[in-house]
């Protein structure tokens, strides 16, 4: 029982061999694709209007791709105050970068050498 497994076996109680898991994963994927190929939506054919996205009314070809940068716009808007601080501190101003080194060294002096802790 090598190191990691002994550890996992004690706590989670399942035997965990990565190579075994990988084998099971591959078999599952093969079974799923074969099954899907045969039995899923038989009436699908590639070059029919089924492929086109349903543009709910406007018929001419539009570029419907959402720009990737606002994929998590909700997360961004939710933490607006946090990001305002963060973006301003990463503004490329060298003095702001290096003052953090001075501040960290001073804090560590107080903690370790000053005997606060």
């Amino acid at each position, binding site marked *: 029982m*090598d*190191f*990691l*497994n002994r*550890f996992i076996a004690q*706590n989670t109680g399942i035997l965990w061999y*990565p*190579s075994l*898991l*990988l084998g099971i*994963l591959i078999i599952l994927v093969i079974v799923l694709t074969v099954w899907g190929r045969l039995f899923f939506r038989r009436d699908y054919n590639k070059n029919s209007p089924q492929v086109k996205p349903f543009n709910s009314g406007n018929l001419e070809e539009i570029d419907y*791709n959402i*720009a*990737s*940068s606002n*994929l*998590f716009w909700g*997360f*961004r808007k939710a*933490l607006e105050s*946090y*990001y305002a601080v*963060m*973006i301003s*501190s*990463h503004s*490329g101003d*060298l003095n*702001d*970068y*290096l003052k*953090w*080194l001075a*501040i*960290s*060294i001073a804090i*560590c*002096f107080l*903690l*370790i*050498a000053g005997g606060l*802790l």
Partner: protein
Amino acid sequence: MTEHLPVLIIAVPLLAAFVLPIVRILGVIPRDIFVFSVFIAVNVMLMSLIPDICIYNKTLHYVLGAASPSTLTPEGLAFPIRIVLKIDGFSLLMAVFSAIVGLVGFLYSHKFVPEDGRKNYYVILLLLMLVGMIGLEFTNDLFNFFVFLEILSISCAALVAFRTNQKHPPYAGYKYLLVSSLATSFFLLGVGLCYAQYGSFNMDYINRMLNHSLLDRVALVFMIIPLAMKAGAVPMHMWVADTYSEAPAPVTAMLVTASQASLYGVFRLSFTLFGNSTANISINYHTLGWIIIILGVLSMFIGVTMALVQHDVKRLMAFHSVSQTGYMLLGVGVGIAVYAGHDGGAAFHQYGKLAMTGGIFHIINNSMYKGLLFLTAGVMVRRFGTANLDRMIGMAHRDVFTTIAFIVGALAIAGIPPFSGFASKLIIFESVYHFNPFLSVIAMFVSVLTLASFLKVFYGAFLGPERKDLLVDNNPLPHGMTAGMGIMCLFILIMGIAPEAVIKYLIDPAIAGLVKIL
């Protein structure tokens, strides 16, 4: 010849770099063959050291210039007088993976860097960056550590500013060099204080003579915090994003290993120089451990939240390397915090040693999959001419290999089972949970955000229709780039499939080297 190996690993690439200005007169092909054979020689020499260091747990000492390579101290003296190279499990582990990333970097940049007059200098700087990394990890002498840290910093700064005709790279090079020379000046101040107290530069001798006065703690802080800055720990991490996003892709892949070399410096100093668990320590090890843990947790959270909102694909990946450094700091920080606990090391044996295993295993994984991701980012920028994610679309249609490589890298960094990220993150989560459940919860949340941001990159650059108008260059990838990415994928898969073998043969000797087992 084998007992001369430690110095040959550093001297051979050094000789190659010195001779290169003369060799280049022969032409481009002989030069490339010469440098490629040097990279292969360094890798082979390092791999040949693995059996007797990792399996038989020996530590190699090599004294430079003495009558015989292993006479550490001349007769009748308590202190070494020459420079000693000491190779134990931890330094060999870091050096092996630095050499691998160096080889991949050279392969990738074979066709990636245009063959104008500057390619000779580029190759010299690549060799000297490798020398700086390996030298940093082999010396047992503080001033020699400073000199190799300086070699590493200057070669990285020059390579970051390689594309001087564009707008930002020179300023990124300036930032990198300013940060590095400020850090090395503080480090030298710490070395001066240590020398003034103990009269020697050898880490083992100073560790034996340490009496933990106020002076040693000032020297400790002067040495560890600047190295944490160069490794990219949070409050001082902002230069990482600006520098990694301006450097050419193979250089960024090696920059990740360069900042991991200074992370090696942090752990080497906090264990070998200032750490002796037996004596009644006045340096409160718990404080040092907690400082590193807080740095780690902040790095994790701020790194990934900043990465989520980036438009530039290289800046996004640079912020991820900051958050991955946070994992390593967290893992080993927990190890330090319980290293010299008053309960006689019971806590250390129960989960502290495991946290350190996870931390160090994560260093190795990070150098692999982070390098791979930066190489794929290089292909993206080369295809679309810009790094902005909004102007990239549908790359999967053309570069199937890059897509597979990106998927392997993204799943590995997020910690999905078949790949190597999973094993080390699982160990970190489990052991940190014993130490303090809240830290483990943060680590898992950050891991989820990592997967989210790489989903964003995959959706932005690879999926979507094939648009010819956005494309800048469409010819097939040169073989050097695919070979580089292939090697990285291979290592990620191997370490993902058999993590126990990697832990037993590579990580445990590293822990044994660092921690004097109680």
